[in-house]
């Protein structure tokens, strides 16, 4: 036998070279089947091959020759398949058969071919066949087969599956029996199948009634119980957690809950009213209210009702509101949370219509009294019996009277049943009938309850409208109270984060009636005009911000960001902010605190600038996504500080100094942005580098009077171009001459100086290697080099000049930014000092950027000295001598841009003198300058304290003096003390505020008179300095 089958396979293929796909071949296959009706070890392979071949022919026939289907049908070939299945022929044959059928149905494209295959109920016979589902693979192929079939469902094909007269819908009922299968893929498939069925049922009333009346309650009640059981497990996982050990399990359970919610939402958005009523009823009264909401207030252990912990309850409710947007469901749920009290759980119905209708006896999280399988079994039997009595639900209207009576009796029965809870006794057929009626009644009632809820809303709305503006007193809203209480984060923000998420989710839920939110004066996302807001909430939020700005604040960044979002939403009406002055003042206080906090971390170190900009970038690129936040199970565990948990930085507390700095920076950004937003002011200072301020490729610049160095740029891939190198205030650029205008250049490349690395080339003194990185756009990606090239200059002198200029430019650019940060923090701006070649920043700017930051008009109006000095600088193109000078006096001026102690402060100190005495002309010419600091360095170093005191006195008297500057000084690290030098106040002017930062960005022409007058403050120690400078200036004038 075996031999024969082998030879057949071979022979078959031999023949098949003519036509494997043909009716003749199918006939031959039929012949094989008739000869092998009994499955044996010997013909097993043959049979499997035969079935496969038949499948192939059918798929081929679907496209090419429908006569094969005629034959297939005529000979009832499906019977052979069934026959093989029923012989307990072992898993091998089962798996192969199911796989083959799967492929067959998946690949049939013609509707008529499908009808052929589905006719005679054979497919249903296969569906109800008792496979060995303990075998994983059989299970997988089986459920995939059902899924494939469900995808083929439509108005016509559904009749092959749903038998109206027999009340039979095997595809659906067999599938839902696996709704709680341990294998998650099976559960996913079941969900897909049910969704496909529900979609089709919309157009098929009898089927819809069947699904609702016979299956909806058993299925949904079991599903809800299944979800609830997972929730209890999840809660258990949170409560028993030690040291975050349960996180893996926890995240699995959270993922499970999310999948469930998405599935429920998928059902609800099919928008099949019949089903939605039943589902909503079950979800609300069997799960969300009795388990989630109930747990909000009853945190004491014990009691009969199952409970979950507060954080889990808040977390899960947030997820519900984030995912489910079905109005009747979310409104009823929000109503209870925002306005309900415990009476919704008491079994005694009161005069209230809503409570009466809701049949409070049902509001309990209890296990369905029977398994889904059993319920389906019972319903099926009953359906058969009742066919004559009441063929379908459509006739209900005629029997209305009769039904109402039965309803009443049934009500009582239902109550006693649930109070007894354990009534798992033998189910009589009369009880079974009740189940059916309960559903119908409940559907009506839930409709009623919804309308009742809306009615109640309006009355309550009036009440709240009356109470609006004033403190809402003597309410009894335990759930809402609990929510507000959880907002308190004196200890930590464990619960507060969830409360914020919940409020956010509610107010952003599309299904929620804005009236509901008005109840707590929390506007929906696009609320209308109003003039009051929820003070309790606002104050809670502001308190969070206050805590966040404290040095030891236990507020996570996510909490703060969400708090800011909510506050904006809360106090913003259509026409702008309606925040009360007192609240704004508190908020400003918090902002001020955040500035103070950040000042503690402000350091002259290079890394601070990078961190500052990096944090800004990551905050703007990745704004808070609440949905993602609420997917993360890690926030369910108590807030932790250690990054070793792998928890994202914003969702935990900072660890170590670097993270504390990062946190302080972010708190500062958030509160600053919030404050500006609420006051309707635009952000003008951040980011430090604005795209629009930068030179871009293809910009055409006036380069007259600019320092340009010709070079050959050799890129990594060997490309060579001639370019002129120009150094701007923040950028270096490579330009080529503009053909249209003499002296103008077209930018071919521009890159930030601050991200540049310059290194010499070992064996070529005329060349430099230059790399400019683009800062990483996301924390995952590496910094990406936008320029990586060798620059070759005409001689080694030019090369050194270029190197110096770039290196200084880099330091200068960074320093400028540091000064702007200092200005943002209301710290006195440090003058730039170490870089000899640049000296005063305004001079440096004017030297390097005449073409961009100065328009001609402005320059024309500026002080003649400045004008002159610009030209002076141009005339004095720093040559080799400059570099030499610097090398002599400062062996490594570039490598120590911001010394923080010791000799550094000496350097700073002399710069105090230099800057306070400087006129624009002092610094702009490095060659002149080089000798000047040499002298004061020794003279002044000992007098630092004195200088400092005088200067801080000056700063106090000046308009933009920092409050409590003395206290601040005490808090600052030693490296920061020189920062007290009031450079800004030196440029004494009326609009110092504007100047404080503008002067750094736009480098307005400094009125040298005002500087001189100011610098004439009698100061013995500085006097000599001044002398030196003045002498120098004179010299310069002479040389000009």
């Amino acid at each position, binding site marked *: 036998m075996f031999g024969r089958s082998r030879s057949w396979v071979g022979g078959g293929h031999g023949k098949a070279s003519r036509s*494997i*796909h043909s009716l003749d071949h199918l006939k031959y296959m039929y012949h094989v089947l008739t000869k092998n009706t009994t499955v044996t070890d010997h013909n097993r392979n043959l049979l499997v091959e035969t079935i*496969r071949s038949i499948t*192939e022919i059918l*798929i*081929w026939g679907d*496209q090419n020759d429908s006569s094969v289907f005629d034959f297939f049908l005529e000979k009832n070939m499906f019977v052979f398949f069934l026959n093989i299945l029923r012989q307990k022929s*072992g898993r*091998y044959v089962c798996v192969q058969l199911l*796989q083959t059928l*799967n*492929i067959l149905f*998946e*690949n049939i*494209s013609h509707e008529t071919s499908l009808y052929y295959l589905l006719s005679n109920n054979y497919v249903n016979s296969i569906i109800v066949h008792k496979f060995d589902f303990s075998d994983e*693979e059989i299970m*997988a*192929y089986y459920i*995939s087969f059902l*899924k*494939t079939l469900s*995808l083929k469902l439509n108005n016509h094909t559904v009749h092959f599956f749903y038998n109206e007269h027999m009340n039979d819908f095997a595809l659906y009922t067999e599938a839902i029996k696996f709704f709680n299968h*341990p*294998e*998650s*893929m099976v*559960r*996913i498939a079941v*969900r*897909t199948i049910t*969704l*496909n069925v529900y979609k089709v049922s919309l157009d098929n009333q009898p089927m819809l009634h069947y699904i609702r009346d016979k299956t909806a309650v058993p299925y949904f009640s079991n599903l809800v119980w299944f979800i609830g059981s997972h929730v209890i497990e999840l809660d258990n996982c949170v409560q028993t957690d030690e040291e975050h*050990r349960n*996180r*893996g399990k926890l*995240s*699995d359970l959270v*993922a*499970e809950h*999310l*999948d469930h919610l*998405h*599935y429920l*939402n*998928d059902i609800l958005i099919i928008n099949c009213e019949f089903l939605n009523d039943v589902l909503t009823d079950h979800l609300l009264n069997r799960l969300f209210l009795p388990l989630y909401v109930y747990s909000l207030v009853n945190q004491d252990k014990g009691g009969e009702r199952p409970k979950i912990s507060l954080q889990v309850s808040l977390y899960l409710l947030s997820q519900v509101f984030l995912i489910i947007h079905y109005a009747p469901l979310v409104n009823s749920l929000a109503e209870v949370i925002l306005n309900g009290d415990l009476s919704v759980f008491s079994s005694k119905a009161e005069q209230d219509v809503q409570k009466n209708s809701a049949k409070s006896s049902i509001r309990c999280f209890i296990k369905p009294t029977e398994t889904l399988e059993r319920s389906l079994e019972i319903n099926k039997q009953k359906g058969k019996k009742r066919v004559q009595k009441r063929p379908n639900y459509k006739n209900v209207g005629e029997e209305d009277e009769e039904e109402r009576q039965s309803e009443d009796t049934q009500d009582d029965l239902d109550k006693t049943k649930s109070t007894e809870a354990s009534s798992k006794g033998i189910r009589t057929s009369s009880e079974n009938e009740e189940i059916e009626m309960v559903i119908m009644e409940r559907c009506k009632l839930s409709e009623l309850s919804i309308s009742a809820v809306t009615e109640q809303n309006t009355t309550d709305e009036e009440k709240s409208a009356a109470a609006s503006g004033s403190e809402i007193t003597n309410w009894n809203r335990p759930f809402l109270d609990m929510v507000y209480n959880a907002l308190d984060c004196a200890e930590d923000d464990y619960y507060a984060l969830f409360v914020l998420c919940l409020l956010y989710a509610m107010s952003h839920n599309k299904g929620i009636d804005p009236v509901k939110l008005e109840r707590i004066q929390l506007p929906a996302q696009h609320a209308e005009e109003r003039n009051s807001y929820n003070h309790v909430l606002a104050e809670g939020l502001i308190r969070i911000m206050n805590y966040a700005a404290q040095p030891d604040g236990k507020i996570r960044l996510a909490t703060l960001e969400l708090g800011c979002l909510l506050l904006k939403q809360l106090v913003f009406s259509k026409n702008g902010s309606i925040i009360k002055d007192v609240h704004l003042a508190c908020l400003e206080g918090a902002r001020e605190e955040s500035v103070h906090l950040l000042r503690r971390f402000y350091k002259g170190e290079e890394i601070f600038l990078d961190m500052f900009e990096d944090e800004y970038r990551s905050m703007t690129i990745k704004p808070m996504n609440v949905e*993602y936040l609420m*997917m*993360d199970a*890690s926030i369910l565990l108590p807030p932790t500080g250690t990054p070793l948990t*792998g928890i994202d930085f914003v969702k935990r507390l900072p660890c170590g100094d670097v993270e504390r700095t990062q946190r302080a920076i972010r708190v500062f950004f958030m509160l600053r942005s919030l404050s500006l937003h609420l006051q309707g002011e635009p952000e003008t200072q951040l980011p430090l580098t604005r795209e629009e301020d930068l030179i871009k490729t293809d910009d055409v610049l006036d380069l007259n009077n600019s320092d340009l160095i010709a070079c050959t740029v050799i890129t990594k891939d060997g490309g060579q171009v001639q370019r002129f190198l120009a150094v701007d205030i923040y950028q270096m650029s490579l330009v080529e001459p503009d053909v249209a205008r003499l002296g103008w250049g077209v930018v071919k490349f521009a890159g930030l100086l601050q991200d540049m690395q310059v290194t010499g080339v070992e064996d070529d003194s005329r060349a430099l290697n230059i790399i400019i990185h683009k800062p990483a756009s996301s924390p995952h*990606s*590496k910094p990406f080099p936008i320029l990586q090239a060798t620059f070759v200059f005409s001689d080694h002198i030019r090369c050194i000049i270029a190197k110096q200029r770039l290196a200084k430019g880099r330091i200068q650019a960074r320093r400028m930014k540091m000064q702007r940060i200092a200005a943002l923090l209301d710290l006195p701006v440090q003058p730039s000092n170490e870089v000899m070649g640049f000296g005063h920043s305004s001079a440096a700017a004017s030297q390097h950027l005449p073409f961009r930051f100065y328009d001609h008009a402005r320059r024309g109006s500026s002080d003649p000295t400045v004008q002159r000095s610009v030209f002076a600088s141009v005339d004095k193109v720093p040559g080799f001598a400059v570099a030499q000078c610097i090398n002599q006096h400062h062996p490594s001026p570039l490598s120590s841009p911001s010394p923080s102690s010791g000799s550094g402060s000496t350097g700073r100190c002399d710069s105090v003198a230099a800057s306070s005495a400087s006129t624009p002309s002092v610094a702009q010419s490095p060659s002149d300058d080089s000798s000047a600091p040499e002298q004061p360095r020794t003279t002044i170093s000992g007098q630092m304290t004195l200088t400092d005191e005088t200067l801080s006195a000056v700063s106090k008297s000046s308009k933009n003096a920092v409050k409590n500057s003395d206290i601040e000084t005490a808090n600052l690290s030693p490296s920061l003390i020189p920062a007290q030098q009031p450079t800004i106040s030196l440029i004494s002017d009326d609009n110092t505020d504007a100047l404080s930062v503008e002067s750094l960005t736009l480098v307005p022409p400094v009125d040298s008179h005002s500087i001189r007058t100011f610098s004439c403050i009698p100061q013995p120690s500085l006097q000599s300095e001044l002398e030196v400078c003045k002498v120098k200036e004179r010299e310069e004038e002479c040389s000009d």
Partner: protein
Amino acid sequence: MEAIWLYQFRLIVIGDSTVGKSCLIRRFTEGRFAQISDPTVGVDFFSRLVEIEPGKRIKLQIWDTAGQESITRAYYRNSVGGLLLFDITNRRSFQNVHEWLEETKVHVQPYQIVFVLVGHKCDLDTQRQVTRHEAEKLAAAYGMKYIETSARDAINVEKAFTDLTRDIYELVKRGEISIQEGWEGVKSGFVPNVVHSSEEVVKSDRRCLC
């Protein structure tokens, strides 16, 4: 008759639509249905044995989520590895690789999935929009391997799956991925001989902390 395998790995195949996910799977499972002329044969579920070393066989399981309503976390979470496909003739699908990884990350955290980046349709080299070099760079940045395949010409299809299987096997052997109760990503199976039994029994509470 029963297949004897050391482990069972569950894999996912993700990537933009039209990159040829089902074609690739089909090609891998082919041999049986080579003659089916319809190019759109989908595979809903399949399992296949792969021999990574003589005598060491691994069972691969792939569930397709075709027809799925919404993304289910369970789909990602219960997989140990995956093929991340893009179409070398479709730049967009390459750019979306990052999105796919991010999405996966959100769904599987705190765990990880071992991915191999697959540049599909490499038979269409003339219409190539993504160079091998940049794909390799991207793969390296995410710590993935890169391989170019063609389902049409059966280039590297087998290799893509076996390489991935081998990598996962190494991680399992080193204990970096471990079998866990209730997790369907890796299961230990029938042991062909006694020698291996010690490896399988080890059950740890962590499968992959990243």
